[in-house]
């Protein structure tokens, strides 16, 4: 009985130590991969920051309104630093996955392969959000300028509606790309878009009937009269 217990204990310890010995190289390899990933990530970060500095990326972000949004969100880092950090974490995450796969654990391996399959969708969604944000800023500013210069009522409201619609569209497209509740996202987008339009129609038609009348009267008057109201030539 005593021999049997000690044998079993030894066997269990042996199995544990064998497991540790089998696992240890994988763990060391994972740690090494992680260390290499950290160094490469850091190098990529520096390279990205320097390249973006040469390409005047911060200047572009200033002119496109990205910097202003970052400031509003109390993010003090420059856009090129942020991009450098983003690339660092992307490289680091990739090496982390590679390191974890070196551990030869079946569940982790499956999760990693799913992560790498999903990664392009995440990047595509981020790109859609970025382009959508830039487009929303650009078009809403163009709408604001055109409305002011054409002496239209409520230029900021027009600009805000344009920005909101483009942002909603970009957000829905990004979620659709991530395959998150696809049908719900499309339905939500259609409902939101329809609600905005219906809301505007009701607000304009009922709440602002007099304003609507004035605007339409002015538009019709504009059609009857030359656009250049003043009797002189500006140029």
């Amino acid at each position, binding site marked *: 009985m005593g021999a049997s217990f000690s044998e079993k204990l030894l066997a269990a310890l042996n199995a544990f130590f064998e497991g540790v010995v089998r696992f240890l190289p994988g763990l060391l390899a994972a740690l090494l991969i992680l260390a290499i990933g950290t160094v490469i990530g850091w190098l990529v970060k520096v390279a990205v920051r320097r390249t973006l500095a040469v390409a005047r990326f911060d200047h572009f972000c200033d002119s496109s309104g990205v910097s202003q949004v970052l400031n509003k969100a109390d993010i003090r880092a420059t856009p090129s630093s942020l991009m450098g950090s983003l690339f660092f974490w992307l490289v680091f995450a990739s090496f982390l996955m590679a390191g974890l796969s070196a551990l030869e654990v079946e569940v982790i391996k499956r999760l990693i392969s799913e992560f790498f399959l999903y990664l392009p969708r995440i990047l595509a969604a981020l790109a859609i959000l970025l382009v959508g944000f830039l487009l929303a800023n650009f078009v809403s500013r163009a709408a604001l300028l055109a409305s002011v210069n054409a002496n239209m009522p409520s230029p900021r409201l027009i600009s805000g509606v344009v920005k909101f619609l483009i942002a909603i569209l970009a957000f829905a497209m990004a979620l659709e790309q991530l395959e998150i509740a696809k049908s719900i996202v499309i339905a939500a987008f259609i409902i939101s878009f329809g609600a905005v339009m219906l809301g505007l129609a009701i607000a304009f038609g009922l709440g602002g009937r007099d304003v609507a009348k004035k605007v339409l009267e002015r538009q019709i008057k504009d059609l009857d009269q030359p656009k250049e109201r*003043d*009797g002189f030539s*500006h140029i």
Partner: protein
Amino acid sequence: MDEALLPAPLPERLSEIGPVDILVGIPSFNNARTIGHVVRAIQAGFAKYFPNERTLLLNSDGGSTDDTQEVVRTTTLSDYGTILAAHPVHGVHRIVTPYHGIPGKGSALRTVFAVAKAAGAKACAVVDADLRSITPEWLDLLISPVFRQGFDFVAPLYRRHKYDGTITNSIVYPLTRTLFGKRVRQPIGGDFGFSGRLASHFLEHDVWHSDVARFGIDIWMTSTAITSGYQVCQSFLGAKIHDVKDPGVDLSKMLTQVVSSVFSLMESHEQLWKGVSETQTVPLFGFEHTVGLEAIRVDVGRMVGIFRSGARDLSAIWERILTPETFSLVQNLTGTDDGRFRFPARLWVQVVYDFAAAYHHPTMNRDHLLRSLTPLYLGRTASFVNETADADAGQVEDVIEGLCREYESMKPYLVERWDG
């Protein structure tokens, strides 16, 4: 290079005609209604003022879909007696040709320059195809200073209503005068005279795929002539009346095009204009006279309204363009009544210089930047109308001269902002 600029039948036609002394070009696009009058005036001008010279009339057309080209081919001046002129010795050669390149007046004139070079023309002129007030005398006034006096570039000087040409009066004239040191009153007049050698010089520049080819050719020709050291003068042409412009063309777009042309030239001639410290008058030809100041409709309230809307809704944009001091002074203007509204000349110059600096160091899309100038320009125009309500033409010129002096005295501010 010039061969490629001349479409297929053109070189042969030029060979048939041989060298010419004088060339007049008419850029056109769908001007059938008015171009006949312009062609007759040019024929009469050739007969009356240059009867012994070999002359060529060139229509550089942008693919008109009306009868513009046919009108140019068939219009003739049969009764020379009415203008007290004899038939020209050599006859008037005429060529109608499409131009190549980006659609725009600049591309049309590039073809005129290429023909002038190929035909060895000594003196040239270009006139708009929509002119209703052109007379044979215009040819004498645009070409004689070049052909007989040795000048290289003749800018037009029109007599206009005191409120006409406000973009020229409040931005283009004072700014180009301050930058380049020559007091050319109508730098974007549209009708010019120039020598054959200046035409060849124009062709040497690589600007024909830029906005110069589309809409900035007038100011580019004037500034290139000045900055390249050619002899520049002006000729008084009298009133300029042209066909009614397309009412759909909006002011903001027009202002953006004109101002971007000037600001682009500031970038390409930076070293030159920074070294100019004083301005000089240029010789003037022609007999000056005044025109009537009939009452015209001016909606000051609407202009001030757009300015106020800009101050309210575009403040976030203006804050990124104007200095804090300029921005604050502009915002302080919004409280005044329409009738007493004033936009001080000094503040206006500060605004223009801030916009020039912002264009040079863009903090946003350049088109947006310049479009945000429209409410400020309308504010300044409303102020000008209020200021000169009872002024005659001479007094209005004094006000414009005062504005030019402000531009000149504040040039160090421009340099500081430009370099900042």
